[in-house]
């Protein structure tokens, strides 16, 4: 049973979400502030954090930033308000894996949560035992089960499940152009309303972490109007 931390300061919304998550078998803990959320994650581990951006005190962006800084790589889904596109991007930049826009569809929230939890398993490679071992390219060796990239000079770069899942998709199709829609389908498990900037955001993060010169990427290459290509 997966354990979900729900951080939402609107009591009604929190109650409704928690009810539905429990109803389909998740164990749910709810908190109403950023401080309480951080305290909860220190006390015990959660498989997923569902996090409202606008919280009293420490806001959701700061929460995800601190979680990542503390080495927590578990999936984080942000809940943002409509017309606040900046928040969605800021959330992804801060380290969130995905975002949900208020007022959201219940089915969509549940699908996103399932997607994020599945991604975690898939990225580790546990579900596909016949996949090749660590991915080696440039100076980096990516070990999928541990979500860690190690450079030849000994530098270690931890990855989130989403980052690892993207690299895994790249690794399976070297030299092939992969569209943003394919990423959304394969990594985020999402079809329908497509928000491709989520993909672009994660590509930027991967480049920042793993390219020798992120401004002139050599391994994760953009292909105009088509998507991205992985050059080992």
């Amino acid at each position: 049973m997966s354990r979900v931390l729900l951080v939402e300061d609107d009591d009604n919304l929190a109650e409704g979400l928690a009810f539905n998550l429990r109803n389909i078998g998740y164990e749910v803990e709810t908190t109403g502030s950023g401080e309480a959320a951080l305290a909860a994650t220190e006390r015990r581990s959660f498989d997923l954090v569902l996090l409202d951006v606008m919280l009293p005190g420490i806001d959701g962006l700061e929460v995800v930033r601190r979680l990542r800084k503390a080495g927590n790589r578990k999936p984080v889904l942000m809940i943002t308000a409509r017309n606040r596109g900046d928040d969605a991007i800021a959330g992804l930049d801060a380290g969130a894996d995905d975002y949900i826009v208020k007022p959201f569809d219940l089915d969509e929230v549940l699908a996103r949560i399932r997607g994020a939890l599945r991604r975690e398993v898939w990225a580790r490679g546990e579900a596909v035992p016949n996949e090749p071992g660590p991915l080696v390219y440039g100076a980096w060796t990516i070990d999928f089960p541990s979500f860690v990239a190690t450079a030849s000079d000994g530098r270690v770069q931890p990855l989130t499940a989403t980052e690892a899942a993207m690299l895994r998709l790249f690794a399976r199709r070297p030299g092939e152009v992969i569209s943003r829609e394919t990423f959304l389908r394969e990594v985020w498990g999402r079809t329908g309303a497509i928000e491709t900037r989520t993909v672009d955001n994660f590509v930027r993060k991967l480049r920042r972490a793993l390219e020798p010169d992120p401004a002139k990427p050599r391994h994760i290459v953009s292909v105009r109007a088509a998507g991205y290509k992985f050059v080992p």
Partner: protein
Amino acid sequence: MRIRKISVRLPATLLATVLVLVITLTVLWNVVLVHDYNRMKALAGGAAFHTTFIILGSALFLAITVLSTILGIRLMANLRWSQRQANFLASVSHELNSPLSSIKLFTQTLQRAGLSEGDRARFTGKILMDTERLSRIVANIVRAAEVDHRGEDLTVAPTEVDLMEYLRGYVDDARAIHGSDLELGLSGDEACVEIDPLMFRQVLDNLVDNAVRYRVETPARVELRVARDGDWTEIQVVDEGIGVGPDRIERIFERFNRLEDGHPVKGRRGLGIGLSIVRSIVKGHGGTVGARSAGPGKGTTVWIRLPEVRRSEIPA
């Protein structure tokens, strides 16, 4: 939700720098002129010209200093106002989105099979509660726009109302809306006032909403009191909430002036327009409004004074 900060620091620094430069320049300029003046005294006609020059120049410097100070202060006031409006927009987005999301969520939950009767009743109650919340927010935004449009002269359609009976009706409604969050009492003298019942309802809604929002304990204990004082009837909304410091109490009726500015507390968000609307509506009724508090943590009393209507004055 992030708001891009509009910084007041830059114009403030620039203003301070300009003032220091102007004052330094004035002083140096005068030193030079006075020094020259002493030497010029020897020359016929030179000193008179110099005196005029000193007076004129000093006046100009003074004018520049005063004007740049006024300009700077106005600029900073405008920046602060923009910041508050930006905060307001973010708050509107949040305040509307939360009940909307909740209504949608509970409706979709109700559509699912296998809910117990108890859950159904509870979720329907939540939907009603959020609909109420939403309609009060919309009413406040519309009223604020009306105040902006017409100034403080709201169109009031007053009718003679038995105040205690009106308040008893309100207490029943408020208890139903706030449920277990509110313990609302009513006491005082019978009185007759001329109010616009619908508009005045917004006054009570905003005051009681605030008392619930800024509560220390749940339920919020709030008392409505009515007292007659000569030609006036006073309605008090007395709470045991977080209270207001003496430095803030005068300003709580200003728009966008919110207690939690910079220190948001769980569930205590709002738009920062409720009390300003209370003031506009009470003024529209020819009344006055004010607040007192023994300080932070010691509760707040908001009082409204309305002109009394004497039964004997009313034609049969």
